[in-house]
């Protein structure tokens, strides 16, 4: 019952996008789906599995991509992001599951006939061609008239701010320039979908930030669907319309950046997206959670299991005078981080991370204050801080539930 209510609540957000199996089956027959926002889905993956030998790299991956959106696959190294892109690009065939592009089965189509282009993880520029020839490559293959090729190439080079670099050899470019060439080479073909595999991975921080903004701008201007892979959560949150958080080949959560940040669905997401305090809690009734033997109000209803994970973001905690109705502790370290102080408070045998602009000296006694909105309740999963006895049950329960949303 809670499931349904929770689903209802999320539906209001209009963001939860895991498809039900039943619905997607009807989607196979060449019809293009659209969701409540009225936007059509350009790509849909349903129940995709992929193993390399013993290792399962994609586990029952189901999601869709809306036209013209900036979708990010986010997850730690080795979680299967590149493999997912390669399935879309046609360089890997999944073991099971379906992939549709504008309603048509994509899997039998060879890479060179797919209407998507890829920016590869290590650029994969052709060293025997110069910059302009690299960018022109796709158009040349399509045998476009030379005049049109030339004008589109120079247009694209100026879009990525590389005017005048056309005759440069590839090995005379900086990392950032190579990266732009790779983007130009893919974009010049005006694909319906552009796949980008950690394109900013090799750049320094400043360059990364600049390119993030430029990429986002290009995506908006050209109206091309971007599927972007990164393991950098900040990058994912700043650039994306939607984020898919993956771990060990399975989707953990799909949603808008703000929802993923504010409503992480399990401890993995909470931990991976930003810093958080993840604490064991108990719920006996709706809107009240027991943390360290004290009751706190919250906005969630009771889950099936009593044991829950409670997530509280470091910036949501205020340090106040100790009081009976608060968790009280001692500041064990305080570090200045520029905008805020990062403080660690030891309370009820746990270390709490607190970000605040108010400085509290080391050794001072404080109370941890947070509002009902700041307390995020999550079902226990394999990623929970301490494994309770009902762990395994709730973890599998969690993944089943994913398919019921919407």
């Amino acid at each position, binding site marked *: 019952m809670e499931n349904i209510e929770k689903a209802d609540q999320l539906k209001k957000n209009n963001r939860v996008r895991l498809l039900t199996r039943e619905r997607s089956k009807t989607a196979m027959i060449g019809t293009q789906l659209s969701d409540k926002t009225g936007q059509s889905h350009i790509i849909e993956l349903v129940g995709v599995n992929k193993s390399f030998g013993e290792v399962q790299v994609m586990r029952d991956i189901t999601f869709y991509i809306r036209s013209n959106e900036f979708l990010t696959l986010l997850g730690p190294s080795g979680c299967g992001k590149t493999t997912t892109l390669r399935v879309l*690009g046609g360089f890997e065939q999944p073991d099971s599951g379906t992939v549709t592009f504008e309603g048509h089965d994509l899997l039998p189509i*060879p890479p060179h006939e797919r209407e998507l*282009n890829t920016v590869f993880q290590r650029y*994969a520029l*052709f060293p025997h061609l110069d910059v302009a020839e690299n960018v022109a490559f796709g158009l040349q293959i*399509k045998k476009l008239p030379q005049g049109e090729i030339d004008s589109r190439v120079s247009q694209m080079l100026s879009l990525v701010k590389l005017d005048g670099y056309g005759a440069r050899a590839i090995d005379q470019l900086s990392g950032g320039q190579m990266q732009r060439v790779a983007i130009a080479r893919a974009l010049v073909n005006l694909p319906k979908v552009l796949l980008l595999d950690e394109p900013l991975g090799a750049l320094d921080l400043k360059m990364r930030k600049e390119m993030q903004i430029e990429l986002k701008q290009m995506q908006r201007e050209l109206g091309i669907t971007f599927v972007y892979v990164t393991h950098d959560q900040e990058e994912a949150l700043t650039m994306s319309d939607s984020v898919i958080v993956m771990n060990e080949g399975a989707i953990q959560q799909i949603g808008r950046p703000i929802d993923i940040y504010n409503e992480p669905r399990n401890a993995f997401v909470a931990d991976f997206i930003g810093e958080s305090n993840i604490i064991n809690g108990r719920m006996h009734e709706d809107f009240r959670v027991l943390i360290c033997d004290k009751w706190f109000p919250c906005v969630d209803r009771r889950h099936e299991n009593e044991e829950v994970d409670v997530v509280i973001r470091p910036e949501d905690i205020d340090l106040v005078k100790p009081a009976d109705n608060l968790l009280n502790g001692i500041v064990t370290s305080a570090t200045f981080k520029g905008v805020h102080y990062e403080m660690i408070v030891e309370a009820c045998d746990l270390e709490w991370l607190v970000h605040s602009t108010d400085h509290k000296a080391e050794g001072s006694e404080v109370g941890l204050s947070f509002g009902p909105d700041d307390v995020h309740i999550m079902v226990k999963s394999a990623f929970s801080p301490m494994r309770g006895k009902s762990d395994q049950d709730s973890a599998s329960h969690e993944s089943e539930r994913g398919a019921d949303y919407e």
Partner: protein
Amino acid sequence: MVMNTRSGINEKKETPPTKANAMPLRKRGGTVSNIYLALIFIFLYAPIVVLIINSFNAAKSRVVWGGFTLDWYRKLFQNADIIDALRTTIIVAVLSAVIATLAGVLSSVGIYALPKRFRRIMMQITNIPNITPDLVTGISLMLLFYFLRAQTGFVTLLLAHIAFNIPFAILSIMPKLRQMDMSLYEAAQDLGCTPAQAVRKVLIPEIRPGIVTAFILTLTLSIDDFVISYFTAGNQVTTLALTIYSMARKSVNPQINALSTLMFMTVFILLIIINMRTSSKNRIAHNGVISADRKIGKRAFTTQRKE
């Protein structure tokens, strides 16, 4: 020849000893190893130097200097048999090099596309001709042609040269391919190339240096070959190497010196080109070339490929 021993040593080089103990060691062994080195050079090169000097010697005797002359070279180019052999040598060399290189490219791409396990097996098979003595290769090819009732002559000679050249072509091309970022091939397909187009437009230009090396190397090996040609050419056609051999058997003819000098210089220059191509640009490509050098150096020592 010398080049192969050098690169062979380079490859096997172990971690250099620390300065502290290296210096005294080197000093102690200095004179002995220098003498040893000098002896090697004398034994390897003295005959060649004598041969080259004698090719300009006006006297017919090998021990007396009768003044400088280019007569032997002039006579050489008036000798119809030799001109004929030269023509055969060049045609066989060029044809076998072109065909073996093409076959080498196709085989390399094919082998590269195999799953790892099969790839290793194929490379082992490719290496077998390297360690087979020319004599065995030559005789077995002769027996094969005999078995097929093929008349030995130009065609069998050419086929034999193609056959022994292909493994060397593969060994020159394979390292380049292994070096290539496989995502280039995928990027080409991503941009609309069919797999065949991707091979032609991206993969081949990428491995071009290896292909050129393969061509020069197979050309060299073909010009250089005596043993295999001896068994597969029959008695109608003859190559330069075969001509030298038959001339040397008949009588002492200073034209041999001139011809040998020319062949030596040709092969020597080609080898230098190959070595420069492979060592300056890319160390990884060594593998194929070392073994090929070894083949050329077989007269001096028949070594097993170490791997």
